[in-house]
């Protein structure tokens, strides 16, 4: 393959790790499990992700991998509202995790209060 003298953005991204953070892999894994088990359809997921991407990837600067995964997370949250998980449930659960982290000394496993 000819090696262009300029490393274009596409070529630079070619060798990058696909995930910067574990949560990014978890979002895609969660979506896939929900498709496999029929909670959501592959088409709904593609449509939801597409809509969410159009909202965040609006220009060159916002066309980032981090924004791709944030869009995936937002799309999944929105799809799950129709499966009976409300935004309030999600926020309350998030706050429960925040409280659990704050209450746990460093180095110990973080557990939710039952």
């Amino acid at each position, binding site marked *: *393959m*000819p*090696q*262009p003298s300029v490393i*274009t*953005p*596409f*070529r630079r*991204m*070619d060798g*990058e790790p*696909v*995930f910067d*953070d*574990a*949560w990014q*892999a*978890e*979002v*895609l*894994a*969660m979506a*896939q*499990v*929900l*498709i*496999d*088990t029929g*909670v959501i*359809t*592959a*088409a709904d*997921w*593609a*449509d939801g*992700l*597409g809509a969410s*991407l159009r909202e965040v*990837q609006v220009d*060159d600067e916002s*066309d980032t*991998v981090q924004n*791709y995964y944030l869009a995936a*997370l937002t799309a*999944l*949250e929105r799809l*799950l509202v129709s*499966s*009976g*998980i409300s935004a309030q449930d*999600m*926020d309350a*659960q*998030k706050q*429960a*995790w*925040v409280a659990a*982290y704050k209450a746990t000394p*460093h180095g110990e496993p973080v557990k*939710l209060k039952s």
Partner: protein
Amino acid sequence: MSKPSYDPKNIKKIHAHLHSHLPSDPALRVKALETLLVNKGMVNPSNMDKWVEAYSEDVGPKRGAQVIARAWTDPAFRAQLMSDASAAVDAMGFSGPASGHLQAVENTDSLHNVVVCTLCSCYPFALLGMAPNWYKTAAYRSRVVREPRAVLAEFGVDLPADVAVKVWDSTAELRYIVIPQRPAHTEGLSVDELAKLVTRNAMIGTDRDLKAGA
């Protein structure tokens, strides 16, 4: 001259770090979703783990490369791959989520194929592993349709004017794999050796001329 090892500023910084282990906002949102889904019995955590594992390097593009190498060496398999790619891949034991409704498209001396998902990032990851980062960018998703030759040039593919380009737009229901042309002077190579010459990008279409000594 060595500096004193005790630095109050540094100690303060380390101390802050020890207690600042709160995950990022998206990481917390993901944890919250997972907890809710597990509690409602909608997600089995071990299935999640399997997927996270599948998304790692294990799957990679190696399966796809095996499929291509076999198509290069086994005309009956190639015919099956072209007529019913899902069944052909299934027969190799590579079926899996996102390989259903697969279509193979072949490059020739006068045609080059390139794959995109203009809507989001549909991709045959059971065969190719995780989509590369550029595949998910709006830049690739929109530009490869409008100006495929320019995009290919940015990947280092200098397409002669007499080679036509066909862009295939993936959907949740139909995904594509490109069968690149077999490199010259590879007659004596085994299927495994041939598979090593197949790049992931060649199976997406952002690479074209594979080399025998790659």
